[in-house]
């Protein structure tokens, strides 16, 4: 296979930062309602936290281990850290610029005022001072920092106030952790049903004299540290994965430090104290022109639920199966649901129906991320109590969701479900459900496959495609797949499904080779891929090879994309667009023209090495011609998006289209709502 030089690839981390910049663009986009913009800003902040905790932490680990191999684009870990720092500095400047210059004034226009302490007047000030005395003060614990005691262990992502004090002529420093027991942004009542707001740290900082009575406050600042959080442990040695993960969660606050954020305007004395106290390099330090940790704006924005006009118009998910007998419907035909335009309710309904159906013998399901009060879990518990054989494959390693996962996994076990906790070294990422039902004519197997998780909450925000079927060939494959996961067999025999970690890569190579051969034979070659991330070098090279051969390749990659489109003699026939909008594009969909007999596969796998080689993933084919047609319709609507789509340029940056007319997410909702009944 042909290989391509470093210059033909985009670094994964920089591409991710580009994605976060696109999310940030949404905060500027006048098409978005104000509080949605605030939410987007919060998302960029929490995204960045995760990015530092996992990706940057990983790179720092590499440096520590003296591992200097080059990445796909020819950068060493050191190079990458430097470039990430540059780009993140740019991103943070933009974040605070939009916050200070655009969002705060716009909020003010809507009569939502976030004040500084000094801007408070009369009763407002009194209220806040009383609030400090009564609520905040009793729970504050200043930590004195001096050589006589060990440097305190600071919590990951918590906000601290550093105070420089004059204690009997000597300069001392103390830290105060911002408590999380009260809201970060505190309401100040202004008459009936009218409020203004202030950040909690602002109140504390302005009342420091009460905390350090008798000592002179020289200066103060807020700061925040981010630690490495990657879950790295030896699964082979872990006798009980559950216990191991619980341990890891406890240890998370002890990870290596990867970022230090300090509020802009910090005194040079405190700045040098902080820089000398933490093992950080200059490039790891970020000065923020406003409140630290903008992710708090999410709960702040959502608290204004009564301000309808400041949010997106409510799109009620369409439920074409409302009140229907799910078994009857699925047995009569294959069914597709396009979330969140269509409803997640039929999936819950199927499980609820199965849990009390006399004919149902067994239910098997993979669960990756579920909501904390999940109706799915409840239905499974009911099923187990009704003597159904319930087998649940729980992936405890779903990052940052482990605590939640452990709680409900225990609940399932208590109810009598057979709970299996993942496989060593393989994260179960597939989203599959199998219901074995005894009917008059014999055993019938009902299946549900999805590109998204069994999570009723995210199902309202993420775009995913759900598929119900009773096709025998898929039933055999999915049974085999579950048998593999439950350890009943080592060799799953697949006829239709494409599964990772063994088959997905070879499948793409083979199908792309077929497109190449078709083009060489004078037939059209065309591939469309919809995914979250495109990172895998070998497959990107296969795309380049196909492009050079004349295969048309259209990619809709929402997040990271290491492929450079439109490069002469490399990728001239490849176009990449990214849709970032109201809903998180989450679908993974692959279309091969296949000499005019289209192949459409959906599933859980992105084209990243981890999805191809290190995870359990399932791609499922759509074979019903009418459904293939409706999927092509969806793809075409997305490909003609000019409003929320940006196109990737060969320099790795993205641009909006000139005439922003088509918003595919809104058009798709309109399309479905013109078709069927709502929930």
């Amino acid at each position, binding site marked *: 296979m042909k290989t391509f030089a470093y210059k033909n690839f985009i670094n994964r981390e920089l591409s991710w930062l580009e994605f976060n910049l696109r999310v940030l663009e949404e905060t500027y986009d006048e098409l978005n309602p104000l509080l949605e913009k605030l939410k987007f800003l919060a998302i960029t902040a929490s995204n960045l936290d995760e990015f530092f905790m996992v990706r940057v932490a990983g790179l720092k680990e590499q440096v520590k281990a003296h591992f200097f191999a080059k990445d796909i684009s020819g950068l060493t870990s050191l190079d990458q850290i430097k470039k990430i720092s540059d780009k993140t500095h740019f991103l943070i400047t933009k974040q605070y610029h939009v916050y200070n210059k655009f969002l705060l004034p716009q909020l003010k226009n809507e009569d939502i005022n976030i004040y500084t302490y000094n801007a408070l007047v009369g009763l407002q000030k009194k209220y806040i001072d009383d609030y400090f005395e009564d609520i905040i003060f009793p729970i504050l614990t200043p930590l004195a920092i001096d050589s006589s005691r060990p440097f305190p262990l600071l919590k990951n992502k918590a906000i601290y106030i550093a105070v420089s004090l004059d204690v009997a002529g000597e300069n001392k420093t103390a830290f105060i952790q911002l408590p999380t027991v009260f809201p970060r942004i505190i309401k100040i009542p202004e008459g009936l049903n009218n409020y203004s707001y202030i950040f909690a740290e602002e109140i504390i900082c302005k009342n420091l004299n009460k905390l350090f009575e008798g000592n002179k406050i020289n200066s103060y600042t807020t700061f925040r540290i981010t630690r490495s959080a990657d879950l790295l442990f030896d699964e082979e040695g872990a006798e009980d994965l559950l216990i191991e993960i619980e341990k890891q969660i406890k240890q998370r606050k002890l990870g290596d430090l990867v970022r230090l954020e300090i509020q802009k305007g910090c005194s040079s004395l405190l700045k040098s104290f902080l820089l000398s106290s933490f093992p950080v390099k200059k490039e790891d330090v970020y000065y923020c022109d406003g409140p630290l940790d903008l992710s708090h704006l999410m709960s702040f924005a959502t608290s204004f639920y009564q301000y309808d006009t400041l949010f997106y118009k409510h799109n009620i998910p369409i439920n074409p199966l409302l009140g229907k007998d799910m078994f009857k419907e699925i047995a009569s035909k294959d069914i597709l649901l396009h979330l969140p335009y269509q409803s997640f309710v039929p999936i819950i309904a199927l499980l609820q129906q199965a849990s009390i159906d006399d004919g149902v013998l067994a239910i098997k399901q993979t669960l990756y991320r579920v909501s904390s009060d999940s109706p799915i879990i409840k239905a499974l518990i009911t099923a187990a109590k009704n003597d159904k*054989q319930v*087998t649940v494959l729980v992936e405890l390693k779903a990052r940052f969701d482990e605590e939640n996962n452990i709680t409900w996994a225990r609940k399932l076990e208590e109810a009598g479900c057979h709970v299996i906790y993942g496989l060593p070294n393989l994260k179960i990422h597939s989203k599959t459900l199998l219901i*074995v039902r005894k009917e008059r004519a014999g*055993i019938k*197997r009902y299946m549900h496959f999805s590109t998204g998780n069994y999570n009723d909450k995210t199902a309202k925000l993420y775009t995913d495609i759900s598929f119900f079927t009773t096709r025998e060939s898929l039933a*055999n494959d999915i*049974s085999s797949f579950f048998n593999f996961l439950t350890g009943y*067999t*080592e*060799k799953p025999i697949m006829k239709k499904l494409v599964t990772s970690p063994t088959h997905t890569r070879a499948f793409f190579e083979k199908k792309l080779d077929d497109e190449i051969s078709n083009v060489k034979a004078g037939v059209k070659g065309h591939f469309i891929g919809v995914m979250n991330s495109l990172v895998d070098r070998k497959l990107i090279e296969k795309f380049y090879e196909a492009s050079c051969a004349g295969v048309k390749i259209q990619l809709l990659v929402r997040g990271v994309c290491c492929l450079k489109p439109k490069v002469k003699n490399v990728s001239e026939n490849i176009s990449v667009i990214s849709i970032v909008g109201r809903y998180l594009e989450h679908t993974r969909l692959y279309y091969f023209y296949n000499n005019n007999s289209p192949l459409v596969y959906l599933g859980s796998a992105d084209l990243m090495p981890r999805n191809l080689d290190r995870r359990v993933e399932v791609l499922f084919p759509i074979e019903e011609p009418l459904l293939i047609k409706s999927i092509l319709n969806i793809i075409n609507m997305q490909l003609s998006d000019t409003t929320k789509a940006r196109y990737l340029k060969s320099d790795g940056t993205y641009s909006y289209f000139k005439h922003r007319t088509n918003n595919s997410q809104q058009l798709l909702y309109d399309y479905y709502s013109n078709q069927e009944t709502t929930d």
Partner: protein
Amino acid sequence: MAKFQTAVIDIGSSNIRMKIFENKKSKIKQLEHIELPLYLGHDTFKHKEISFEKVDRLCEILTSYKKLANDYGINKISIYATTAFREALNKDYVIELVKLRTGLEVIVLDDLEEKTFIYKEIKRIVKGKVKNGVIAYVGSGSLGVSFVEKGKIKYSQNIRIGSLKLSEILEPIQEYTKKFHVIVEQYINTYIDVLGDLIKGNKQNDFIATGKEISLIAKLFGENINKTQFKISKTAYNTLYNTIKKLTPEQISNSYNISTDLAETLVPSMAMFKILMDFSNADSFVGYDISLCDFIGFKNLHPNLYRQLDQDFYDDIINQARHAALRFNYDKPHANALLSHSLLIFDAIKNIHGLNQRHRLLLRVSCILHDSGKYINLNAHTTHSFNIISNLEIAGLSMEELEVIANIAKYHADLLPDKSDYTYAKLSFKNKMVVSKLSAIIKLGDALDESHLQKLINTKVDFSDNILKIYTFFKEDITLEEWAFNNKEVFFNNVFGIKTLLIKERII
């Protein structure tokens, strides 16, 4: 009523497999196929016993399989074990342990039963398409070969070398030689070189291969693994074999992307197929990916069709018996006369002997082979017949049935079944009765051709009023036959509690 779903577990030498089938509109649908490796063969072939660690794992696997069967509402599972279990010295303890721990009862198939299932399954699938050919079954622990002539099995032989067993036996040599395949071929030849002589002069146009490595071989040839049958040319097979045989298991594993465990048994298995294919004139290798599970599944779900298939196989059994008898220079006209007399009697008293069609088959085989001991020595020939028959292999008959036939042959002449006789004493009560009844019949039948001259031109039998009347029509004097009849009817009368009457009618 026939079952709708059935679960079958096959405990092999290197893996434990379960299949779940459903009877849907008279067709068998496979709902599940699971397989986990467990090298029981490593234990049995090396240490003669199954270790406790393996028993623990076996119970673990069986418990999980039971759970999956429960997912389909199946409570009763058919569990069959083959060579690794059969040859383990502690097999009885293991069966008991498995039963106590899992509640499941393992049935250990004898070598003949195992191969019989395989041949029947092949017959079921090929539906009479194989006229003349060689069927080779290479299991992990044993090898079965049968020669088919005019659509019937003529000769079959089980050899206790399977792919895993061979790789275990020859493992110590492997490190010291670069030509491991040569040793494998030579070793196999020491077992099967005589087969060539047996089938000399016959046309063997087809070569049918089946066994554990078949799906792997199909995969190596890029065949669709989901098909039950595939065909490749002999040249192509030999080319691949010649490439693979020179590689170490590690090299095979890397080159063909298969596990080392599979790679280890591939060369022995392909070598066995190659050598057996050379016995035939076939120009192609036809692989059948069939399994014991499939056959038992069919047997459980379609008991009527199975019965039919079983009866169709009777002809193969008789054919094999005749070819075996031929090897011992049997007196064919006498055997035929005996057969005809015995069956007349058997059928006439069917309401009182309580025996079934299967016993009738045993009687037929006994008639064909009863005098084979004369090949060794005319003196005490019935004892020699017993020894020959109990050491024969006839696909379609179990070891237990051969034991019964051997005893019938032993008692066809003067000897009477006697509890002080070891070979009779060790039979079950049920089989003792079968031997006594069938030997009583064969004794009478034999008496009617005592001179081996087929003097009776016609014979008719009538059973009424508790008297078995035998009408004989003859030209030559039959005093010898009459004398023999009178001597042997006493035993017959005692066994069945009926009287016998020989009615003679001389014709011109």
